[in-house]
Structures are given as C-alpha cells and as structure tokens.
C-alpha cells in the first residue's frame, strides 16, 4: 500500500528526519487557519497517490491566508490522472540551496534492499539515472547489518551528498525496517539557504503482507475506488475491475492472468480479474458470480478451472450449488480440465442449465465466451 505524502512526512518526522512544518486539511476555511498558524505564506499540495501532480497544477504557492483558502478551494476536488484530491497539505515554504535524492528500494533480482542516492535530486531523477548513471549511486544493503553510520557515510560519499545526509540515511533505513516498507524515497532532500537538511517530499510503499504486525495503517484506506472492487473485497475475493465485457473466474493468479490474455487474443476484452484460489468451492464460486453478474458491462462469463488438488467433480458440484443461490442472467462458459475432468463435465451436463455451456479446451472456451460477448 502506498502512503500519502502527508503520512510519509509524519513517519519521517517520528523517526527524527527534519521536515518542513505542515498540516493537512479537507476544508478551504481550515486552510486559511493553517496558513495563519504557519506564518502566512504556504505551499498548498494536493494529496494524491500518483506522480506528476506539480505539472497538473496540484502544487501551488499561496502568499497569505486568504490566498491559501482560495488555492485550497481550487485544489480540493481536482482530478489528477483519475485520482480525486480529497485532502491538501499546507507547508511552510523553504529557501532551497541544493536538491538531493535518497531512497531504499527492493532490488528483486538481488533479493536485497538497495540504497539509491544522488546529489542531483528533484523532478528529473529518472532522466539523470538514464542519461548519466554515474551521477546515481546504487549500494546494496546487507539485511543482517542494515545501514549503520559507517555504511551511510559510504552511501553519502558515493553520491556526493553533504555530511549531514548521513544521519538522514540511517534514520530513513529505520523507517524502512520498522514500518515494513518496500520503498522509502525522499525527493527532494534539500539543503536550505540556512544550511538545514529537510525532507521536502517523500514516498513510502508499505508491504501488505506485514499488516498482521503493522496495525497502524489499517482499514481506513483499502484503495478500492471502484464499487465492484469494494464489494468483492468485502467478500474476501481477489478481484480487479477491468474495462471489458467477458467476466472471468479462474483458480490461481497465473492461470487467471493467462485467461485474460487468451480472451483478449480472441478479440474480446476481459471485464475483470478474479482468482478464486485452489479450493474453488461453492461459496466462493457463488460470491464471485454474483459480483461479476452485477457488473452491467458483462455480456458473458468464462469460468476456467484446472482441477488439481481440488478435482473437477468437486468444482462442478460447487458450480451447481452456486447456481442454486445466484440467478444467472448471462451466458456462462465453463472449461474444466485436470483431475476427474470427465466426471466434472458429466455433473454439469446432468444439471443442464440453459445458460451454461461447456467447452473442454481453454482456447476453445475463451473463443466461445468472446463470441457470446461480442455478438450479444
């Protein structure tokens, strides 16, 4: 889960990294009060989990509290790349002398976290990395040792950062480890004209797998803007809404992704990703079908199950039971293959639901579901 900038700022501050004074609000009137508290002149920053908000007009300077209220009114509710701005952060402006870049990020290939640092921070760090890689230091971190002062000094030295950045690097590592983050990034880390080092903007991505021991960033933000996704999440389903007309149910993330590809290859668009897992029982099948059938864009549904640990006859029983509780309104194409495939197919044949048809191969079934969706 990605955090908002103001949440990242709060974490940095808690771990002793200096940040500009700032407050968050969802109300223009309160923005005026905040600006007054912060000394009048403030930067108003849209809180959205996407990049490019500066270019989109989501970061603006306000000269006084009245201007802060006006600016907050303009920014709140703005749409930035499909994200609606719900809150704005107001921060004291800073006189910048230099801008740096520091982050810790997971290097999947090495299976280690990597420190990335550069004396050339700011908006264009990706371009710096691409055009002048020598200006960006990349140093792997030994997980047993972590980032000690000595290690941090090495990173700062390699990147050409000032000595005061060493302490920030150590504390930023503590943020990463204590919060179970997959990414912590400060961009820019600035040196002010008065010589202070401040984290001006930051990004933190937390590991969803660690929620059981990181209760703090809980249920207030599940990240489901889409009502179907929210409904599916409430039923514990692994569902992602897509912009198509063929509803998809399958078991196993890889097989479902593959199913989306095969349907797309047949000239139709998948309406969703839904992985019901290895068990593929009646309840999860019913829950999945009801979510998919409530999507008005869906014209046909493709159930693609490989019977492994749970054999096909058990899966077919599950489908039959699900159809007793869910009223089928769209054609359903079922492909069952794997253990006890013949018995599973016989169960569905016997049930003989008028809207259910079986195709024995995955490619053939995808073609059938695509045809039903595009001619419907």
């Amino acid at each position, binding site marked *: 889960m990605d955090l908002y900038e103001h949440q990242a700022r709060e974490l940095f501050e808690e771990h002793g990294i200096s940040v500009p004074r700032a407050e968050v609000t969802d109300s223009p009137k309160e923005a005026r009060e905040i600006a007054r508290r912060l000394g009048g002149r403030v930067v108003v920053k849209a809180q959205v989990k996407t990049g490019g908000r500066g270019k989109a007009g989501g970061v603006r300077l306000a000269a006084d509290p009245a201007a802060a209220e006006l600016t907050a009114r303009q920014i709140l509710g703005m749409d930035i790349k499909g994200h609606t701005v719900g809150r704005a952060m107001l921060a004291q402006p800073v006189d910048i002398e230099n801008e740096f870049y520091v982050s810790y990020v997971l290097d*999947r290939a090495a299976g280690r976290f990597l420190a990335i640092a550069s004396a050339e921070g700011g908006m264009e760090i990706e371009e710096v990395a691409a055009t002048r890689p020598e200006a960006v230091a990349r140093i792997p971190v030994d*997980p047993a040792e972590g980032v000690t002062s000595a290690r941090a000094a090495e990173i700062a030295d390699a990147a050409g950062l000032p000595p005061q950045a060493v302490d920030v690097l150590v504390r930023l590592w503590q943020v990463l480890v204590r919060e179970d983050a*997959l990414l912590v990034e400060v961009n820019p880390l600035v040196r002010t004209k008065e010589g202070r080092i401040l984290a001006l903007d930051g990004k933190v991505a937390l590991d969803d797998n660690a929620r059981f021991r990181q209760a703090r960033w809980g249920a207030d933000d599940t990240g489901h803007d889409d009502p179907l996704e929210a409904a599916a999440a409430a039923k514990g389903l692994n569902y992602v809404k897509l912009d198509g007309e063929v509803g998809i149910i399958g078991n196993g*993330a890889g097989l479902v992704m*593959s199913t989306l590809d095969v349907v797309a290859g047949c000239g139709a668009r998948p309406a969703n990703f839904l992985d019901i897992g290895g068990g593929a029982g009646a309840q999860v099948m019913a829950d999945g079908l009801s979510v998919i059938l409530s999507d008005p864009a869906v014209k046909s549904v493709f159930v693609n199950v490989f019977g492994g640990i749970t054999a096909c006859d058990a899966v077919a029983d599950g489908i039959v039971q699900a159809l007793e509780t869910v009223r089928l309104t769209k054609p359903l194409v079922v492909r069952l293959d*794997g253990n006890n495939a013949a018995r599973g197919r016989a169960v569905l044949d016997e049930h003989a639901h008028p809207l259910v048809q079986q195709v024995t191969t995955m490619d053939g079934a995808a073609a059938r579901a695509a045809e039903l969706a595009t001619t419907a």
Partner: protein
Amino acid sequence: MAIYLTKESTVLVQGMTGGEGMKHTRRMLTAGTNVVGGVNPRKAGRTVDFDVPQCLKGLGGAPRAVPVFGSVADGMRATGADVTVVFVPPAFAKAAVVEAADAGIGLAVVITEGIPVHDSVAFTAYAEAKGTRIVGPNCPGLITPGQSNAGIIPADITKPGRIGLVSKSGTLTYQLMYELRDIGFSTCVGIGGDPVVGTTHIDCLAAFQDDPDTELIVLIGEIGGDAEERAAAYIREHVTKPVVGYIAGFTAPEGKTMGHAGAIVSGSSGTAAAKKEALEAVGVSVGSTPTETAKLVLARLEGR
C-alpha cells in the same frame, strides 16, 4: 536423475500437524515421498498416522506413522533428513527457515503465502550464507514425478519424463504438466511469485542444463520484475537445450507503481511483451496460450 529432489530425498515437514500440513503430508506420502518426520516443538515425541492408499506401496507409500520432532536439528539427527517443507504461518516462517538453515539442511521448500518481504529478504540471505537452498516462499514446491513430491503440486496429473519445468505460477504449472502428461517431466519447480524468492529461473535453468534426464526446458513467467529478462540473458550464454516459454499477464492491469526507484532498479518495464521479446531474441519459442506452448514443446521434441 532429476534436479534438487529424488527418490533418495528424505523429507521433514515443518508445520505438519496443522490443517494444511496434515492434508499435504498425506498427499506427499501418497506420491511416494519419503516423509520421515514432522517438526513441532509442542508435539515432540508423538507420532501421526497417515492413511496412505495401498496401491502406491510400490512407490514407497503405505500406511505410515510419522514421528514429530521438537526441532529440525532433532529430526535431522534422528532420520538424516535433507529436505524440509515449511507450512508454518507467515508470522513464524522466518524463524522456521532460520532454524532449518542453522540445522544445516540442504533444501528448504517454503510453501507459506503472505510472508512479509523483509522476512524473506532476511531468511534468503541467511540461508544462502549457511548453504541451504530455498525454494519459494509462496510457491507450490517441486516434484520429481514418480520419485518424490515436496509441496502441494498435484502428483497425479502427469508422469515421469524428459521435460524440466520452472514456473512462477502454480496453476499454470499444473496446466502444462497436464497438457504434456504423455511425455512427462524430470522435475517441475514452482519457484513462487513473491518479489523475493530463494531459487530463481536461472538457478533452475542451470540445473536442468546439467541434468542428463532433462531434454527440454519449459519456462513459465509472468509480469513484474525482470527475472525473465535475466533468464533470457543466461540462456544465451549457458543453455544449449531447447527452451520453450510462456508468459502470463499481457492484459493484466498494471501493478502498483514503485515510484522512480522501481524503474531505476529493474531497468525494464516488467511487461509481458518485454519478457516475450527478450526470450524470443535468444531463440526461446514462446507460446501465446498454455495449449500452444504445449504444442511448441511437442514440435521441438519431434524436431530433435
């Protein structure tokens, strides 16, 4: 021969007495796996009876009383076990793997799903230093059909043969194992789909290249990271056996962005198209569906 797992392998199960552990230990025994013990400090000294179908006696399966040991070290001392399969819950998985590595076990197969990445980073590094190979986490394990099954892969959908398979995805592995059941497999390794895994595509490619029983290698990948691109570079330099690939996720929604830093590290977009292109550039035939992939395997084997 095979890779990593043979009929000589002796297997412990950490978390055997839990629900998943019991279910899959029985399945492993049924597939002929020589399961010699479970590990649970609170149930040490007991035995668990498994009712294994009689028809598989010839493969080493039979009704079996499996002893429970208090630690991996105790289990290894008593039985000489060289493989452990880990089913313990996410919160305890790191301690379980560290314990197995400290005991000096050769192979730890971590089935557990949902382990925090910081824990995986820590235990894969630790195990590497101790000389323990990790398969997983969040994986279906590995199977050498007709010999041994360490994990949750269904053993009864295929048979022994000459294809080696390495995959990030469980059900896609099963699909290909089933489609190619008439030819059969030397070993199938589900390396897991987590961002950090112990055994990589490249490790398996190297092992299959050296395995005389493997004639052809199937490599299954999916979007995210750059493991497939790295595998392609490895194939160009080191693999002379034919490789057939499949990549899932051409139409999958983009995963969450990892900020600037993610793109800088991987140096690759991580898209399915980029992976397919990288593999095809080094002579790997890449199927557009699992079934087409199986057909490509048949064509490559007939062409030899």
